[in-house]
């Protein structure tokens, strides 16, 4: 199973996780792992998700998450996990 990494970075505010998770649930994307911290007032979250049964294509999810990020005021990135695996694992 190939996984996707979603990162959310931006100014902390109420309901960031709720909004992102609602979108993922609506799109039938399964969250496998979440880690989140606040660094100097900045919200920093990484999710590992499984998009194999998603109701939308990778490109659509990317565009919509981008739009959602703009509404909340954070930057949301959606990347295939391989770029991280390749770079950090031999």
């Amino acid at each position, binding site marked *: 199973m190939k996984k996707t990494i979603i990162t959310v970075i931006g100014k902390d505010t109420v309901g960031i996780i709720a909004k992102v998770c609602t979108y993922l649930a609506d799109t039938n994307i399964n969250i496998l792992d979440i880690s989140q911290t606040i660094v100097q007032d900045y919200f920093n979250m990484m999710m590992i998700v499984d998009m194999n049964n998603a109701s939308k294509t990778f490109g659509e999810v990317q565009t919509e998450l981008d739009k959602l990020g703009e509404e909340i005021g954070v930057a949301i990135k959606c990347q295939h*996990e391989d770029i*991280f695996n390749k*770079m950090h694992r031999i």
Partner: protein
Amino acid sequence: MINMFEVNETNKMIEQENLDVRTITLGISLLDCADSDLKEVNRKIYEKITTLAKDLVATGEKIEHKYGIPIVNKRISVTPIAIVGSAACKCPEDYVTIAETLDKAAKEVGVNFIGGYSALVSKGMTTYDEYLIRSIPMALAKTERVCSSINLGSTKTGLNMDAVRLMGEIVKETAECTKENDSLGCAKLVVFCNAPDDNPFMAGAFHGVTEADAIINVGVSGPGVVKTALEKVRGESFEVLCETIKKTAFKITRVGQLVAQEASKAMGIPFGIIDLSLAPTPAVGDSVADILKEIGLEHPGAPGTTAALALLNDQVKKGGVMASSYVGGLSGAFIPVSEDQGMIDAVVAGALTIEKLEAMTCVCSVGLDMIAIPGSTSAATISGMIADEMAIGMINQKTTAVRVIPVIGKDVGETVEFGGLLGYAPVMPVNRFSCEAFVGREGRIPAPIHSFKN
């Protein structure tokens, strides 16, 4: 499993330190396009390129989105045109029609450069090689995206000094033909010694005759990433310095390897090589000169520069070869002047001269690259500069190249603007003493003694 620290490190490299894949270059063999009828050659070339490369740009963009990594250029390299057109071209003008076809095909598939308007004349020139070479000024003036390269020598064959002399004149003529645009044509023309068959970087990319029908080569980059990594080890020993460069080069190259494999799979074209090069751009923070400064030089050009560059180049290779099974092309650190803000600053500050750049080319991967010189520089002097650089390559068994721009109508102290990735450059002074009698000699310089290994 991947953790947040690693994800953030990668994304910081991409967003803040200009990590990117510099180019996916699709090499296409045009050997099967040869014909005795020029029209037929042009038709076959156009058809083959537009068929094989039609998905290149779209595939590149798809990979960019999937991994969130920019792929700056999608390009094409083709078989040296001197060979492809040999049966059909009866004069330099005939070759120009092929250049125009290449330009048209490049525009059709949406690539920004197409390389391979080339001739390989390291030992001797055939009539058709000479036709192609003589057509270069007109071809580069009439086209936008075509890049030209000529191999003038190799460690095995020695230097073809007749071709070196001719290329001095051609560089000058190309500058004249494109003088309205600050002699931009010369930025698309490079001469080599020991030219690699699989180089994905322009202007020197061509698809060697030893290559398969089509192949994907990828050039990675990321001087900003190396620079940022070195900021954390200021004042540390050489061991720590080298270790840091190696680890960073490994990470950068792995991304290139991933992109290359993806592109190869998506297009159904075999993967060739990764070119592990630190290629700068004029963007702030994307500079090889800044790495040299971080290593401990006030400006590139200061005493110690050649040693620092040698160390950098070697560590980039050592880290990179671990990350990819097939490494090739030029692989190392590029030191163009106009494409690197730190190099431009060094020239303006008076720290960097052409002579020091020449010394640096003994240990880096390319050569005298993107250097603007006065338009009044004679063809013989340019040939002399080329001969020096080729000799360094021949004796040291490495690739060297020259891409100088004699800017017509401009002199030392003035600046030339090329725009985009090509950047801008201050016109640099050239040694004013003559080498005319030297380059005027006919024939070739024999291969060095250490080339006889059989």
